Structure formats: structure tokens, C-alpha cells
């Protein structure tokens, strides 16, 4: 008989190996320098976050209350499952027609944008668990095809995320813009189709690797 912990202990490899921390330190130095350069160049995180936060608290299932203040706008339909303000915001080279209330931009970069609930414990922009991620790349979209306002979208389901993709518009850099969101967090497919339809890719966007 084998205890699972014992099996895993043996499979994990040697418990004592020589460690040279200086290679990790050098990588850390380079990453920190890049981060500081990026922040200094654009003031991106702070500016973008200020533009997105909006008001209120996260109310995933509230489809009415928090957007009552924006009844003057008729351009963007009210979406369900999460509160939106029909208030555009800019994050790096991407422009959004709607602002998800209670969410903020954690990171904006040429290849995409990471959006998370305000105060989300994981503040690492390149960590996507539990977050909303907008990506731009050149890969052919796949999944269930959905038509909305004359535009084709592809909906795919992962283990615990859903990804919706669409080709960029004629006046945008050619490619595919997609949105990945955690399933079961209050974001519905229709909500995200509407949200993604309002994402505009600017000339500074770059296709991600893949």
C-alpha cells in the first residue's frame, strides 16, 4: 500500500539540489527595469485604472441598479449579468465602448488588456485566473459561430473559461481580437458578445505570439 503523499514526494524529485539564486536575481532585475520603463513611459496602469473603475461595487448579478445613471445613452444596449456604464475608456491601444462597473484595468500592453475586479488579490497583469483578458493575435478563430449586427463571432469553451473572438474591423489593424472570461462569474455570452463588439483595436496594437 502506498500513501499518495509518499508517491508524490518520490515523483517530485530530489529534495536537496544546489541552487544558484543569482540567475533568478538577474531575471528579476531585468523584469523590474522593464516594468519601471513601461510605467514611466505611459503611466499606463494608473491612468487606465482611473478610467475604468467607475463607481459602485461588484454586483455580478445586478443588471439594473448600477447603470441607472446612464439612461441618457441609447447607443449601447443595456447588457445583463453584470453592470456596465456606457462610458468609453482607453487602455493602451484599445478603446472600449463600455465600462464594467467595479472592475479595473490591471495591465494594458500592445498585445492585450487585463481587467479584474477592483481589489482583486492577484495584481499580476499577466496572471489571468479569475480575470477578463482581451487579446489580439493573428490566429484563425474557432468555436461556435454567432452572428451579431452583421459581424461574426466565434465562441469557445475551455475547462473554466469562455473565449469569444472576432475579426477586427476594416479600419483597424488586421487580426483577431478575443476576450477570455471566467465561466460562471456572472458574465453571460450575450453580455460578452456586446462587450467585445465594443472593443476597438488601435494602430499601436501588436499581435500576440501564438
Amino acid at each position: 500500500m502506498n500513501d499518495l503523499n509518499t508517491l508524490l514526494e518520490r515523483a517530485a524529485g530530489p529534495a536537496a539540489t544546489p541552487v544558484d539564486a543569482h540567475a533568478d536575481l538577474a531575471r528579476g532585475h531585468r523584469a523590474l527595469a522593464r516594468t519601471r520603463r513601461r510605467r514611466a513611459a505611459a503611466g499606463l496602469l494608473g491612468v487606465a485604472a482611473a478610467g475604468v473603475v467607475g463607481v459602485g461595487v461588484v454586483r455580478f448579478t445586478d443588471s439594473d441598479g448600477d447603470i441607472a445613471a446612464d439612461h441618457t445613452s441609447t447607443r449601447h444596449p443595456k447588457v445583463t449579468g453584470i453592470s456596465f456604464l456606457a462610458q468609453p475608456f482607453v487602455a493602451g491601444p484599445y478603446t472600449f465602448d463600455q465600462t464594467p462597473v467595479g472592475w479595473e484595468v490591471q495591465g494594458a500592453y500592445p498585445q492585450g488588456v487585463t481587467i479584474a475586479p477592483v481589489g482583486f488579490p492577484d495584481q499580476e497583469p499577466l496572471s489571468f485566473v479569475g480575470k477578463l483578458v482581451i487579446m489580439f493575435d493573428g490566429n484563425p478563430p474557432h468555436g461556435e459561430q454567432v452572428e451579431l449586427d452583421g459581424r461574426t463571432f466565434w465562441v469557445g469553451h475551455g475547462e473554466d473559461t469562455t473565449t469569444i473572438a472576432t475579426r477586427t474591423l476594416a479600419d483597424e489593424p488586421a487580426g483577431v481580437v478575443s476576450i477570455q472570461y471566467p465561466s460562471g462569474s456572472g458574465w453571460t455570452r450575450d453580455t460578452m458578445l456586446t462587450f467585445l463588439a465594443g472593443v476597438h483595436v488601435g494602430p499601436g496594437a501588436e499581435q500576440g505570439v501564438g
Partner: protein
Amino acid sequence: MREAQRDTEFVEFVTAQRTPLVRMARLLTAGDDAAAEDLVQTTLTRLYVHWSRVRRAGNPVGYARTSLTHAFIDEQRRAYTRRETPTDVVADQPVHDDDQDLAHTVLAALATLPPRQRAVVVLRHFLDLDIAETARVLGCTTGTVKSQNAKALDRLRRTLEPTITVQELT
């Protein structure tokens, strides 16, 4: 925070914790040592960049484990990524003795699990985290941890037995 202090503390942390993190990553990647090393490098780099926050949180090991788990799951499910197609078969490795043979068998069994189930197994049964802590690391409910754990153990048992008899798992 002074750079020298950051560097000193980081080097101390890496010296003490790098090997445990590599071992955790090796299980998460089901024995893919190159992928495990990538995950650890990514994790440690993030840790360094956010070291001030890590210090304030007062639990750098927990922070690193969470970051490593997230890096693993992100890498597995990133849409349109550069990652290779996962396989249920661990790459051939020379088998020198019973220990390595056993390790190879266990890693092959881990490779059959979906990423989140594998993460649950590693967090619960290798790191010995309780259900609540596992749920916190994975950003899900305790109910999800329980169900994922049950499915994972059932699959592991079916994969490992009768070659290896696993003690009653909970």
C-alpha cells in the same frame, strides 16, 4: 524599499525555496522538467518585481505557491498560445531503479488529469493544504475543490492500480 535589501531578501528566499518550488512545478507539469523550470522562473521573476507587496503580505512561500499555480493554469489554458499540445504520455526517460520507475508511473498518471484537477492533487496531497486554502489558491469554492479532488483521485486510482495500490484516499 532599498534595492540592496530587496536583493538580499530575494536571494535568501530563492536559496531556501527554489527546490521546493521546482518539485511542485515538476508535479504540476507531470514531469516536464523544462516546463517546470519555466514556471519557476516566471514565478520568481514576478515575486521579485512585486517583492515589496510580497513582504507586506508576510507569507512569501504562500505567495509563490499561488503565483506558481496560477502561472501553470494560465499556461495550460491560454487561448491561442504557443504551448504544445498536452499529451497523456510522459516523455521516455531512462529507468535506473525502482524509485525512478515508480516516479515515472506516478507522473504518467498525473499527466492524465486535467490541469485544475492536477493542481488540486498537488496542493492537497503534496503540499498538504486544507480544502479552504486550496480553494483560496485556485480562486474557486471549497465545493469545487472537493469535487475536483474526488474526480482526480478516482482517475488516479484507476490509472495506478493494480500496478500500484494506493492507500485509501480522501
